[in-house]
């Protein structure tokens, strides 16, 4: 049986207290966090729903005017809303493909490198950087007057006309590059963890069968890291919906809305134009998608972390 030698391991089926007395002492442990979290998430969620049916005024008291489905109707007929979904999808898919491809390659090579620990330390560095600072840094690198990356691309002839962020054709891909820079290592580390779990005996068996490294990768390693890859993909998708700091720092959605991903559009509606009711409608649709993705993520996690058997489930 393959064992994860982690400290926090996948120990399953540890006996659990389930006496009435146990419930009595577990409840006070659980409830404070649950109540706090409920206050900070369910209460806002209810607010969000309320706001989505109102034209929200900011003044305290009873400032909001009930507008029925106006916000929703507006949303479904708002071409920018749908365009922003499109931008989000394009952005997510492209950065995902790049990050997974590059990350997997990186993981395989890391797994074979003698300097794995050192390299991981280096790779962690971009992830420690506040996304908005990363955005500013890259805005500087892309800058048409001072930017070294701009200069480099021009010097090697990759960039003929325009600047990187100034063109609707390249701005989104420029932000993709920042995302790739900051988060490919994360994908690599997740995949690396999957590679560590590739059963050595199976690898040996495939070598005994005469498979080369490439073939044995596809035969043995890939099936084993499929779960890790899935987790990486889902986590990155979630973050692409969650975090818009790169966009705020780099383009603010321009040029010509070419980088206005939906969460950024939501931000603009809510906190530039103070259309909080309309923003709430958009936020709810984003949340819905997030929850669906979240369900997938959690299911994936639970697959990886073996759950107690069916028999135990019956007891629950």
């Amino acid at each position: 049986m393959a064992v994860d030698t982690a400290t926090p391991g996948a120990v399953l089926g540890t006996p659990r207290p389930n006496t009435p007395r146990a419930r009595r002492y577990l409840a006070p442990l659980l409830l404070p966090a649950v109540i706090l979290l409920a206050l900070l998430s369910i209460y806002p969620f209810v607010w969000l729903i309320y706001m989505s049916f109102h034209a929200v005024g900011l003044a305290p008291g009873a400032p909001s005017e009930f507008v029925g489905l106006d916000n929703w109707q507006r949303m479904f007929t708002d071409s920018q809303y749908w365009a922003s979904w499109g931008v989000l999808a394009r952005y997510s898919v492209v950065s995902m493909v790049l990050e997974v491809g590059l990350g997997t390659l990186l993981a395989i090579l890391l797994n074979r490198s003698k300097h794995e620990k050192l390299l991981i330390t280096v790779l962690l560095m971009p992830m420690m950087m506040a996304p908005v600072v990363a955005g500013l840094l890259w805005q500087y690198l892309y800058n048409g007057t001072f930017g070294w990356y701009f200069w480099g691309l021009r010097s090697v002839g990759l960039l003929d006309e325009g600047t990187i962020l100034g063109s609707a054709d390249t701005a989104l891909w420029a932000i993709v590059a920042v995302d790739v820079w900051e988060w490919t290592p994360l994908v690599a580390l997740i995949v690396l963890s999957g590679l560590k779990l590739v059963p050595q005996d199976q690898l040996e068996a495939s070598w005994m069968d005469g498979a080369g490294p490439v073939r044995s990768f596809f035969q043995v390693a890939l099936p084993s890291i499929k779960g890790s890859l899935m987790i990486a993909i889902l986590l990155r998708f979630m973050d692409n919906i969650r975090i818009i700091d790169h966009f705020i720092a780099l383009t603010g959605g321009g040029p010509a809305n070419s980088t206005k991903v939906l969460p950024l559009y939501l931000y603009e509606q809510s906190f530039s134009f103070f259309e909080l009711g309309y923003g709430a409608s958009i936020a709810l649709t984003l949340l819905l998608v997030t929850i669906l993705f979240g369900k997938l993520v959690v299911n994936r996690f639970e697959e990886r972390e073996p759950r107690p058997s069916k028999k135990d489930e019956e007891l629950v």
Partner: protein
Amino acid sequence: MASLTFNGVWKRYDQVEAVKDLNLAVADGEFLCLLGPSGCGKSSSLRMIAGLEFISDGDILLDDRRINDLEPRHRDIAMVFESYALYPTKTVFENMANPLRLRKLSKDEIDRRVRETARILEIERLLNRRPSQLSGGQKQRVAIGRVLVREPQAFLFDEPIAHLDAKLRARMRGELKHIQKTLGTTTVYVTHDQLEGMSMADRMAIMREGVLQQVGTPHEVFNRPTNVWVATFVGDPPMNILNAEVQAADGGLVARAPEYTITIPAQQAAALSSARLTDNKVQIGVRPEALTLSSVRDPQHPIAGRIYAVQPLGDVEIVDVRVGDDRILVRTELGTISNEDMNAPVFLGYKPEKLYFFDAVSGQAVY
């Protein structure tokens, strides 16, 4: 030291009844083995004694005191866990000293008792190590040591040696038995390995699906199992079971199957005829060591079979014989059968007085 009593104890987990109406008394100083397969309720019973599980119904008495509602720490009972449950951050010494410190013993006294126990268990040189630096066998000794230092009312063992290799297990059985007899502490020992029960226990309590099947000394359980399930659970290799039909013949009874007819001894015949068998179906039990083999059919060897495989074990060998669809294991002298005899016809003999008869439907033994 004290006696332990289960009075109609039930353990329910939501819909599942893990222990059903358990009535059992453990005498002061006794070594009782709770034996049974996975999920039989033996661990739940043990954990109810420890106070780690709530008692759904019934009472558990320590001496005459009802301990149902006492917290574990107030029960003065020591326990060895299946995973040993050593404190990973503490040294071996601290692991063993922990219960004593709680009892506010003097430093010298703690030191003396830990070292004394460590000496008995031959783990003195490990006292400064941490659990992660110990092998499985060493951990197991430390876990036992942590129990022994305490001089509690009772010892509880939850599969303490299940994860050791076979050789070490055999040695530990002896040691545990010796220690228990020396100290004379009441002990409840949970295991799924009948060999442990047979070799160590004063009495065994065999459970199945939450129900106590039989309580008795190893000898009693082995020789007079109350039902076919206990009979096959105890003994290695297990008792052979043949399906047959009881028929009247020559004023007595015979058990008949397509391949053989067995005359039922008079005493059991009487019992069988008073028992009301369903459709006259009976199961015949015979232990491998009660069977003999012959290459020719003779009156002592009436049952025809075919040799399937032979497993030499040094002094004896286990012969795997197929009789019709039934698989029979026979324990014989070494060299009776060789590998070349595979698939050869063979004839089985038995000692009539060593046969057990069970009601094929209820499984109850008929004596």
